[in-house]
């Protein structure tokens, strides 16, 4: 029974109305057909291409164009974007707010990226912050967080999170010694900060729909940091224990909230970390290959059980 026969059957049963039947059958035939995704992709690609060209042009022609002209053009674009956004934005709300116009999110994204280009230009040409890029990144992150929450925009939230990550990274890049260990500690600090902030904001009901973005970023940074510790030559035990705890927490969260991406994180990151510990003490290819055969089968059995219990029989 194809979908049209099924719809007809449901209509005859009285399970759906005649109007629903006509509309749903039309949708199945592509009448109408939605271009929602395509139009958004075009706008996004357009913004990216424009900013890439803008950055490239500024980079190449800054000397010929002169600082005044470059900064004037960048500032005009920036002001136009933010004027558009602030003049059209609805009143701020704690809850999810739809964009007032179809292009609103992309104008905001364009403004945010042009802000990056202009600040980078200012710093490189005039050394406003005397090369203190970390302050620039921190200020940018704060500004982007403000924009993301004011205008309810995931694009800009991601920019804010990546700027904050850049601030953590650049701050410690000046430190001469023990870079790996220091990077790791800062990465863990970053992931905890992001995760806890996201949880607190969700708890307070402030743009609770952003929580997924926070949690995914925090989880991935945390797992990478812990894995880098597990791959240490010495002193990896504490990182391994921490990795197991993080995997347990991720698994529990994924199963209880039915967010299976966290089950996948726990399985893959945990397996890599566990295998790194076991394989480093193994001698001979046979033992190593046997380990991978048996553990992969074990993981498959466990995951199939999870999939059976929590997945679906369609």
């Amino acid at each position, binding site marked *: *029974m*194809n*979908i049209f026969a099924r719809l007809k059957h*449901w209509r005859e049963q009285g*399970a*759906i109305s005649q109007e629903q039947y006509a509309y749903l059958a039309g949708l*199945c035939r*592509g*009448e*109408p057909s*939605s271009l*929602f995704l*395509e139009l*958004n992709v*075009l706008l996004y*690609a*357009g*913004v990216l291409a424009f900013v*890439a*060209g803008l*950055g490239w042009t*500024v*980079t190449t022609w*800054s*000397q010929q164009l002169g600082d005044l002209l470059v900064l004037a053009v960048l500032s005009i674009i920036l002001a136009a974007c933010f004027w558009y956004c602030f003049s059209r934005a609805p009143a701020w709300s704690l809850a999810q707010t739809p964009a007032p116009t179809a292009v609103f999110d992309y104008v905001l994204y364009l403004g945010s990226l042009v*802000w*990056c280009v202009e600040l*980078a*230009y200012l*710093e*490189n*040409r005039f*050394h406003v912050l005397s090369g203190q890029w970390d302050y*620039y990144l921190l200020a*940018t992150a704060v500004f982007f967080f403000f924009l993301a929450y004011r205008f309810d925009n*995931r694009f*800009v939230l*991601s*920019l*804010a*999170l*990546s700027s*904050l990550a*850049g601030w953590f*990274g650049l701050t410690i890049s000046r430190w001469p010694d023990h870079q790996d260990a220091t990077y790791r500690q800062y990465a863990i600090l970053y992931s905890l900060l992001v995760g806890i902030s996201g949880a607190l904001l969700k708890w307070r009901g402030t743009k609770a729909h952003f929580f*997924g973005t926070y949690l995914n970023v925090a989880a991935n940074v945390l797992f990478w940091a812990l894995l880098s510790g597990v791959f240490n030559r010495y002193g990896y035990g504490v990182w391994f224990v921490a990795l197991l705890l993080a995997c347990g927490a991720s698994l529990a969260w994924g199963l209880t909230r039915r967010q*299976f991406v966290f*089950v*996948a994180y726990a399985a893959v990151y945990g397996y890599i970390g566990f295998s790194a510990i076991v394989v480093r003490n193994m001698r001979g290819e*046979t033992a190593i*290959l*046997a380990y*991978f*055969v048996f553990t992969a089968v074990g993981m*498959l059995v466990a*995951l199939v059980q*999870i999939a059976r219990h929590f*997945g679906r*029989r*369609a």
Partner: protein
Amino acid sequence: MRAYPAASEETLRARKLLADWAGEGFVTKEQFERLQQETISDLRTTNIFLRLVLFFFTLVGVGAAVGLFYEIFLSGASGQTDGIFLLIFAVVCYAGAEVVVARARLYRYGIEEALAVCSIAFSYVGIVVFFGESRSTVDLVLPVVGVALSLWIWHRFGLWYTFPATMIFAALLPSHWTTSHAAVRVAVALLYGLGLAGVIAARARHRFDYVEDDYSLAEALLWLGIYLALNLQLWSLQMLGHWWGGNGRAASDFARPFYWTTWALIWVLPAVVLVRGVREKDRFIMAVGGIVSVLTLVSNKPYLGWPRQTWDPMLLGILLAAVALLLRRWLAQGAGGVRGGFTAARLSGKDRQWMNASSAVFGLVTPQSITPSPQTRTEDFRFGGGASGGGGAGGDF
């Protein structure tokens, strides 16, 4: 021919559509709960994340098992023996995929997919190892077997990603027939054209049913393949290395009539693909039409030997945004926001999921790749250096 009964796949499709309609409010919660009971399929599916992880661990397990077998039983064996056993493993993997589908009713579950993919990979390596000494035999047998096996698995299990594998194997065939680069390109385009004719013919028999999406994607990939075969400025990495310079290197590698014919074709093909996509209301084909249109705009200057300008991407960006805005405005003028059978409104929850996921991911990824990054203090006027940076703080002025 399909590994799954048509009724099961059709039921599964109905279930997914029902969930989508419920998410968009086209059916009420009560209707959804009632109708859901009528769309229970015997196929076992899972979510995308568990599917990916199951795929990964199946690959690890199978790869390690084959490695272990070779380590224990075949260390020091001849190349031909290794090749034969790899081919045997390919058969075993394929049989494994069939068994788990038949017995456990797995459908896009990761395990059967990884086994099917392993059967292609082992066949590939097995043939290379078996005919190691005879290059010409490898060059002939490998693409033929690759095409046949990938195409069969695509058709049998409906795994979309084995269709591009089929196309890649098919692209290897002409190099066995001729050494002329131009002839190879024409032959590849003709092979894809033959495939396209076959797919279009087969698709006509599956209008609006559960297989149509498979054929739609296959057709879109074939259009893309034909375009890539004919666009001389996008083909080889060597040319890409000279691409930004716009020195027209490709022109000297091909006969002038062929070169300029392909230039004309890369302008004609996007229009053909877009028209086909619009007429069929096919998203995949329209997407490919959009992609090849952009590729044509991007590769036109290198084709003509004109220098690229730094503001070219800006113009492209303005064009893309303008097209989106004009299209949206045009659609909005129709009754109910519908014009020519199209609307700018969202009609599927999948679109929203894609938007949410991609906005988060691309927001994290793009600033580093498109905006200038910081650098250490320098007296030089030109930007340049640095590689790090978060929200676009990355430097190259």
